[in-house]
């Protein structure tokens, strides 16, 4: 008997130990030479939304073991409003899901299917071990995922993003047995509604609060339903992304009957997202005698030592899945730049959080991901961002350094 017990114990010990095997790791990855790294930035160089989404999942989830694989995968068509809504509500824990896109003909491409296989979801414990959340994915493609990969798929079919937000709100509430009282609100009919709200969406991917759409001048019924579900002492806490040119003051006033309304807004999309990075609202939510819960929304980052996700406002389909970088790894807000320059609001914000030399053993460091290839964000802009993130003053203009450099990022032997 003792022998058997000893064998079991030794066996358990053996399977719990080991080392990580070696073997070449350089590889010849097709985009490695495009993934330029500076001291404080690394580029994830997708040339189309589908590829960008795959690069993001490969960056965030090595999937070498269960614990660094995904909880689930979000699969959506290349539709900004649908993807934006899904990323707002599905990504965060306990789901832990990055986003992958259908191809432009609304099918799961071979490269996306292979990536889904590589990711091998752990399954969401709170939701029947679901592996894939398919939002408006054709039934035939859902069947393909089920049959070929054997994954458990939960489908959401709602062509109207406003209704989709409502369905996802109900689903999230069941998942967490709670309605988060903080609700981020973006304008669906404003051409830059998503761009103003992309940073706040990044916060939701990071912290999993509520989301709803409004029109610039009115509130849809589905959004009223979402807001009425909030039971906090003051109802909902609403955060409008964009100024009164994006969501009118009339709507803000009407929303006031559902709770407290705030704006996360700047004069343009760059400013709105810079404000978002530094924005923090906290205080009372609800309390009853021995228990209480504060509201808390926003990154509130106003000092050095953080990470950023940086991309181009014209590439929202690239930026939406990039919010997963704020959900795992170094976590951090989304900032926007122009392809060939760092706009003043973004630069001013980065100057505020610029590190400086501290103690003898280390310096506080910033870090940033650059989303998209050099047509989205130029090499010079990447270098300018690097400069802004660095703890050093720059005596010379280095923006032209990288283009002159020999390309290193490929295995030549």
């Amino acid at each position, binding site marked *: 008997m003792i022998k058997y017990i000893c064998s079991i114990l030794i066996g358990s010990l053996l399977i719990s130990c080991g080392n*990580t*095997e*070696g*073997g070449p*790791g350089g*590889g010849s*990855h097709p985009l490695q030479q495009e*993934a330029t*790294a500076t*001291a*404080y930035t*690394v580029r*994830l160089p997708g040339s189309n939304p589908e590829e960008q989404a*795959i690069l993001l999942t*490969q*960056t*965030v989830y*090595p*999937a*070498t073991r269960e614990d*660094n694989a995904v909880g689930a995968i979000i699969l959506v068509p290349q539709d900004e409003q649908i993807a934006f809504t899904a990323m707002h509500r599905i990504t965060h*824990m*306990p789901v832990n899901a990055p986003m992958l896109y259908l191809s432009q003909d609304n099918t799961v491409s071979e*490269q996306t299917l292979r990536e889904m*296989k*590589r990711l091998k979801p752990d399954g969401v*414990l*709170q939701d*029947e*071990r679901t592996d894939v959340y398919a939002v408006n994915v054709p039934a035939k493609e859902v069947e393909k995922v089920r049959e070929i990969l054997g994954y458990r798929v939960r489908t959401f079919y709602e062509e109207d993003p406003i209704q989709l937000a409502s369905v996802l709100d*109900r*689903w999230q*509430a*069941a*998942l*967490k*047995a709670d309605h988060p009282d903080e609700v981020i609100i973006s304008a669906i009919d404003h051409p830059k509604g998503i761009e103003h709200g992309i940073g706040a969406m990044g916060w939701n991917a*990071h912290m999993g609060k509520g989301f709803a759409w409004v029109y610039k001048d009115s509130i849809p019924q589905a959004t009223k339903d979402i807001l009425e579900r909030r039971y906090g002492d003051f109802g909902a806490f609403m955060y409008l992304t964009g100024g009164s040119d994006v969501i009118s003051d009339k709507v803000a006033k009407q929303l006031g009957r559902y709770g407290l309304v705030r704006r996360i807004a700047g004069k343009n999309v760059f400013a709105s997202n810079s404000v978002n990075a530094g924005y923090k609202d906290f205080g009372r939510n609800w309390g009853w005698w021995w228990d209480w819960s504060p509201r808390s929304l926003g*990154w509130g980052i106003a000092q050095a*030592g*953080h*990470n950023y996700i940086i991309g181009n406002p014209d590439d929202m389909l690239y930026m939406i899945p990039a919010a997963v970088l*704020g959900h795992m*790894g170094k*976590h951090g807000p989304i900032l926007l730049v122009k392809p060939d320059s760092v706009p003043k609001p973004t630069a001013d914000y980065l100057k505020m959080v610029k590190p400086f030399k501290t103690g*003898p*053993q*280390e310096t*506080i*460091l910033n870090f940033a991901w650059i989303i998209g290839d050099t047509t989205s964000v130029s090499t010079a802009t990447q270098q300018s961002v690097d400069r802004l993130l660095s703890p*050093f003053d720059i*005596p010379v203009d*280095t923006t032209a*350094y990288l283009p002159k*450099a*020999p390309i*290193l*990022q490929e295995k*030549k*032997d």
Partner: protein
Amino acid sequence: MKWTYPVVAFIVVFVLGFGLTNLIKEELEVSPWSESGAEEGRLMAHTKNVTRLVNAGAADLHAYLKTAIPYEEAKTAEMSPSEKNWQTFFSQSLQVDPEAKNVIIVPGGGKEALEWALPALYYAYFNGSPVLFYENGQLSGSKEHLENKKAFVIGSTDIIPELDDFAEAERVTASSPQQLALKLAEYRDEEAEFGWGREVDRDNGYFHYVLTTPDDALLGLAALSYARSNNATLLYAEEDGGISGELDRYAFAQRSDWFVTPSEGPFRHFWIVSNRISYAAQGRMDFAVEKAEYASMGPVALGDMEALLVILVIWGIASALFVWIHSMYTLPMVKMPIKISWALASLLLPILGPVLYINSYRRPAKEVEKGDWRWIRSHNQQSATATAMGFGYGANLMIVVGFILVWFGFPLFFGEGMEGPFFWLGAGMPIMMIAMYVFAVLIAWALVQYPMKKSMMPGMSNKQVSKMAFITTALSMLAVSLGMMTTSWFMLMNKIPMMPKEDDVLWFASMWLASFVGFLIAWPINWLLIKKQLKPGNV
């Protein structure tokens, strides 16, 4: 019906044993679901906490980093480093701080000397420490103005013998370059300001690391800029591209925690500059330094709260073993179902279980019928005994049901019909709690309480016994649930930032803690049941 008790005990031990063993198991397998590993189909090599600089050689890497890191403060020599010129390259790169309090003595010469010297060169470059190379029995360079600085000699006496040139000297060495690099990463002489001092308790530092292999030390030297630009310590992987247990241990110790949100700094990052380091090793490093919440420090690692609660579970197992073995050898007059009950209760009541058990049986006893003994106990002790009788089977069964649900995933209901004030009944946790209570009551009623009551009250009809057993089981378990469910909700949904899963010790530990609280709540309620003579407390 005596078979029912060991069957319930077996179910409890089997399921909880499986769950707890599953905690120990650590899967190191690299993506077995892919044909050629997790690297299959990758478009680039970077991961969120590791950047891999694929290169064609030291000259190539050096040229790249001169432009990628263009800062004057992190400038290195214009020449490319090679096995022949590496000392010159370093000397030209080093910006000596005249106020540095230390001087570093490293081996000079060929490639092997570089392997030993490189970890210290990184610190010297970061700190501006003067460096002297020991080669062919001599120290290179001028020792002028260096005598009063504390010397740190890197390497064993086989490489650098004892030196008399300095008033104060200390040797730092290890059995391999890999271990030396790790030693320097943790080493700190505060007075002489030498060593990175990046130990497990440095919770607030923004540490980066350059990772290479000793054979690729030249690549490490080419990436010297990182020592200044990114505060990077040099670490070595194994020559085969894997990582050693020591490096694995160190990297996990560098994982930083978060209290409120994971966007809190600090963050850790690896820069890999060797092509031979495997993707598996990269994945491991990426995982090792991924930020985690304070309570659990993530999967595999052990958080402070986890450590504390693990003690609770281990004490529980020890308590159960003690009670079981003790009762088997010393209490032949106690019936088997009672012994099982005490052992199972002690499993969830570390220390308290054995104390109550001993207190219950170190008392006068009398044999009321042949083989049927009663112990004379105070009312409080009877209440504790009666609680333990129901709790031993019931609370364990509740955890078993909970574990099975967690293992297979919670059902979820969120249809339009679920809207309204009771929407939360569609959520996994309430469903789990209801299922835990209902299934545990049904099993305990049918397989434990009914046969137990039947044997104690042979004169009563089956229907009456059945009804009485059900009421007492339901009431007793409800009392346990009051404490258990409240505590498990507090722990899993409130206290722990992210709800632990079936392979997280915090799930089990929370259940243990919740059960303990459940017992404390049920105890006074059983006091009433004893008083009403609905339960026996002297068996």
